[in-house]
């Protein structure tokens, strides 16, 4: 049955599948087909599972659409409404054409991620071979909590964290002389991307001018010749298309300055309680800020300084994925509170107060300066301890811990002297594989949902299978060729599992 909330994007009637008439539905996440007169789908494919679609050539009598799945299976759909068959098929095809790439990306991403993990982690790869390839557990089960663990680590990468920009990207564009009085700049797409992200005004100019007014090459040539790029030169030429960019940057910088700072502790404007009234004070050297009194050199120097501040700000903003000149959410949130009430301590804006309290706190002078640990709150510790759950669990843990069965075995006889490397390697693989399976098994506890109950049963049978197909043969082999109790721990810890009463404790 379809979930009630599914959005249906397209409905095509009179579509035959396996010689049965029915209706085709394209939903937000899957495509489904149900036979006429029945309220259930007999065909249902997630878009993510579809590798591609194929259509019958024009002019063929049967107007068909084939869906090929990643698994290699395929489903044929025959559009049988005589008058509109072609139109129906094309509508479905077009919609699929739009939808599939979206899901493909997602599927690919997951696939890539899995691939990457397997490549980077040989142990995991071995585990995968031992468990999935040998069909002890299914691939889905294998990835189920791996990916989610991984998601935490890579949550940022899944949010498509953008790669930051090197602050020195402009320096990386080293001009080379081309031997005949010219300079050669080598631009890569990365650098162009960096320029665009740091200087949106240039991107805008690019959009306006390339390709209708000039070629890309011409654009960049002009860019590197511009006063904008060589900011230390004073901007004079009006014909320079980038002169506007400089102004725009200036405007952006001004608006950022105008917005003020969010952190009251760095606000130099509100630092002084009372500046002297006009005319008082001995500081006669206050520089006149008007540009009229400045020399050309001073102007160029202050332009460089402004440029550095602007550049660093833009690089920083591009790196954090925010637009520098737009007030971000945080700013909006706080702007109502950190207004102009700075002078009264009764109306201290919360951020400021927090910041001040932060500053005056001497954490080492407090007795309780250690991190608070969460006390484990066991209501009925006795019953928990006597419960079979804990018994088996502790048995397993004991076996796996140093000093446990495995470790004893290792300690008693230097294993590396007794068995050849390949057997040792195999043992290691078995050890990790068993550990993995046990992890799956134990992660089901407490079994408080139906799903977990099913899983626990399944895992138990998985373990059994593992024991039969892997451990026993290995044990026999080892016993045949060498001495040993080496594998016993695996068996023992699994026996715990088999002894375990599969009754949900809750």
């Amino acid at each position, binding site marked *: 049955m379809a979930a009630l909330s599914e959005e249906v994007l397209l409905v095509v009637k009179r579509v035959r599948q396996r010689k049965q008439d029915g209706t085709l539905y394209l939903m937000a996440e899957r495509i489904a087909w149900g036979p006429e007169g029945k309220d259930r789908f007999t065909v249902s494919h997630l878009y993510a599972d579809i590798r591609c679609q194929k259509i019958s050539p024009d002019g063929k009598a049967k107007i068909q659409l084939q869906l090929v799945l990643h698994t290699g299976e395929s489903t044929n759909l025959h559009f049988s409404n005589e008058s509109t068959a072609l139109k129906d098929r094309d509508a479905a095809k077009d919609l699929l054409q739009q939808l599939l790439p979206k899901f493909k990306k997602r599927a690919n991403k997951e696939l890539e991620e899995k691939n990457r993990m397997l490549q980077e982690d040989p142990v995991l790869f071995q585990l995968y071979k031992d468990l999935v390839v040998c069909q002890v557990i299914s691939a889905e089960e294998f990835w189920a909590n791996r990916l989610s663990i991984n998601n935490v680590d890579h949550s940022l990468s899944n949010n498509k964290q953008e790669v930051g920009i090197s602050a020195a990207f402009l320096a990386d564009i080293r001009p080379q002389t081309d031997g005949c009085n010219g300079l050669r700049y080598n631009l890569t797409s990365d650098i162009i991307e960096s320029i665009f992200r740091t200087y949106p005004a240039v991107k805008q100019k690019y959009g306006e001018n390339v390709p209708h007014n000039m070629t890309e090459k011409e654009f960049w040539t002009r860019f590197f010749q511009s006063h904008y790029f060589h900011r*230390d030169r004073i901007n004079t030429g009006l014909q320079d298309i980038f002169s506007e960019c400089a102004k725009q940057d200036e405007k952006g910088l001004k608006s950022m300055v105008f917005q003020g700072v969010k952190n009251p502790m760095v606000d130099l*404007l509100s630092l*002084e309680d009372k500046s002297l009234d006009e005319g008082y004070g001995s500081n006669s*050297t206050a520089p006149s800020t008007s540009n009229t*009194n400045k020399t050309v050199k001073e102007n160029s120097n202050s332009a460089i300084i402004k440029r550095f501040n602007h550049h660093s700000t833009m690089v920083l903003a591009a790196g954090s994925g925010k637009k520098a000149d737009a007030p971000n959410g945080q700013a909006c949130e706080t702007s109502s509170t950190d207004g102009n009430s700075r002078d009264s301590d009764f109306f201290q804006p919360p951020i400021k107060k927090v910041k001040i309290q932060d500053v005056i706190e001497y954490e080492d002078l407090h007795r309780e300066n250690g991190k608070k640990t969460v006390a484990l709150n066991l209501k009925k510790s006795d019953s928990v301890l006597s419960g079979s759950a804990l018994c088996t669990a502790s048995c397993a843990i004991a076996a796996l811990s140093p000093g446990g069965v495995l470790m004893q075995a290792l300690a008693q006889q230097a294993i590396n002297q007794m068995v050849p490397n390949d057997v040792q390697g195999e043992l290691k693989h078995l050890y990790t594989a068993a550990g993995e399976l046990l992890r799956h098994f134990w992660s089901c506890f407490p079994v408080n949902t139906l799903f977990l109950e099913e899983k626990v049963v399944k895992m138990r049978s998985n373990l059994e299978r593992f024991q039969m197909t892997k451990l026993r043969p290995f044990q026999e082999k080892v016993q045949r060729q060498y001495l040993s109790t080496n594998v016993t721990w695996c068996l023992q810890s699994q026996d715990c599992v088999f002894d375990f009463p599969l009754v949900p404790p809750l």
Partner: protein
Amino acid sequence: MKLNIEGLLVYFPYDYIYPEQYSYMLELKRTLDAKGHGVLEMPSGTGKTISLLSLIVAYQREYPLEVTKLIYCSRTVPEIEKVVEELRKLMEFYSKETGEKNNILALALSSRKNLCVHPEILHANIIVYSYHYLLDPKIADLVSKELSKKSVVVFDEAHNIDNVCIDSMSVNITRRTLDRSQANVETLQNTILKIKETDAAKLKEEYRRLVEGLKEANVARETDIYMSNPVLPDEILQEAVPGSIRTAEHFVGFMKRFLEYLKARLRIHHVVQESAPQFLKDIFEKVCIDRKPLRFCAERLRSLLRTLEIADIADFSAITLISNFATLVSTYSKGFTIIIEPFEDRTPTIANPVLHFSCMDPSIAIKPVFERFQSVIITSGTLSPLDIYPRILDFRPVTVASFTMTLARTCLCPLVVGRGNDQVAMTSKFETREDFAVIRNYGNLLLEMSAIVPDGIVAFFTSYTYMENIVASWYEQGILENVQRNKLIFIETPDAAETSMALEKYQEACENGRGAILLSVARGKVSEGIDFVHHFGRAVIMFGVPYVYTQSRILKARLEYLRDQFQIRENDFLTFDAMRHAAQCVGRAIRGKTDYGLMIFADKRYARADKRGKLPRWIQEHLTDGSLNLTIDETVQLSKHFLRQMEDQLGLSLLTLEQLQSEDMLQKIAQIAHQA
């Protein structure tokens, strides 16, 4: 914890105490006991403020008749707010421990908007406000003059207190000031005419009062109700306002004449420098203005404005400035100089005459404070050399002490870089500061440090112009490009709003792990008011020795005055001044014992004893022979080593109550305070 400081029960709102805090309180208590003044230096981040508050509040509770009030002065708004927060914490601790409801009234003034709370000031037990409320006679007269003699005054962050004093007493007069004053005078004249028609009695009443003289003020001062005001000298209180300016019209006429004279004085083509007596002689010869009425100008104008019931005094700021100048110039024959400059040095073609009436003697403004209040505490993280403050402020302290930071690990690492790897001396000395090799070596130092120091680096230059020039050359030489490979670069500009934004972005870059460098200026706003705690400042580089711009005539006059009056040699004062600013700059990065940071002094001159010896003791004691006159490479090696060591916090330097009770420990603590 509850402490016993030589018999005084002190509530201290923490479970442990730093040894130096204990020592500090001890010295503070002795100062209060002696009813004298004190100079106490203790590094920031060692809990100076809470020690001060805890002890003085305890003292006030124990001896309510001896100390009635605590007046806590700090410099910036954030600092004042910090004090208020610490006070709140202390009060909470008190009510928790004693179970009593808090019966201490504390009042914080941190803006002129709050001036109307005047009556409350008299009743508060603790007042927290900025220096100006006590040192600027114009404000002090409104806010602070009635404060009880039995108050303890604390000037925190007092390393620049002499400059605050001087600023509050200095006046600059430009053409614009005179034009606005002219307009003020005309408004006054019209208002007087109007009042004369409608309410002549009012003016008569004023006249009567002025004949009576300023007796009221005199009585009040003699009976100790008021603190004295340097703009309202004692002598004039005993006299009646001179007849020549007693009627309102005459006074306005008098001011007009005075303004005309000043206008004429501004019409010059060369620099004039003269003393106050010379000025008075000249004004008498040219326009027959006597010294006596001039002295009454400020008071006379205040009376007139009151009589005319003028609501917005701010509109009359120009004429008020002129009248204050008149009173000051006729009252003090010493301690001030008059310099009239026809144009700015930088722009000799643009006429912009200014009359600087400069105070050269900081003791004039602070004298009433020392005279009136029984204990005045001057304290800061950097007050070295300690003996200079009593000299330039002209007072006799009973306690002078410097406290070092007790550390479980050496969390600060001062290094003096004297040479580049090419052995070229590194210095901002005037003769060589523009040398290509010096600038390049400075650049290399920054570049090398940017590669090894995590998160934030703050670099200070000796002046803004110097920074501009260096940044421009670094840019041309491609040094900054390479620095950018390691960190983002932000630079202080003369515009405060722009710099605030750069600062915020700088912190953001330190926070998100990119790391950044802030290029800034000693004596600038950043160096005086912004802290770079923890990762916001893992290294401070001081490029050069931040000497004040010595070509200024005002400074020259002041140096001369210091030499003649206080026997302080010019060079000693200049070095002292440079070193206190350098110490302020490098101290920005260490704000507590859990913090750590490098302090790079990039000038070979720092290695000399006369410079080094003027650094605060808590920095000096970590400056060993092995950290002097280093090359860039050596600096990098030592810095790397230091940073590696700092990765783990190793123990804390704390005392428990039990430890404080052992004789042994108390003896050790006594050694922390270094008596000057």
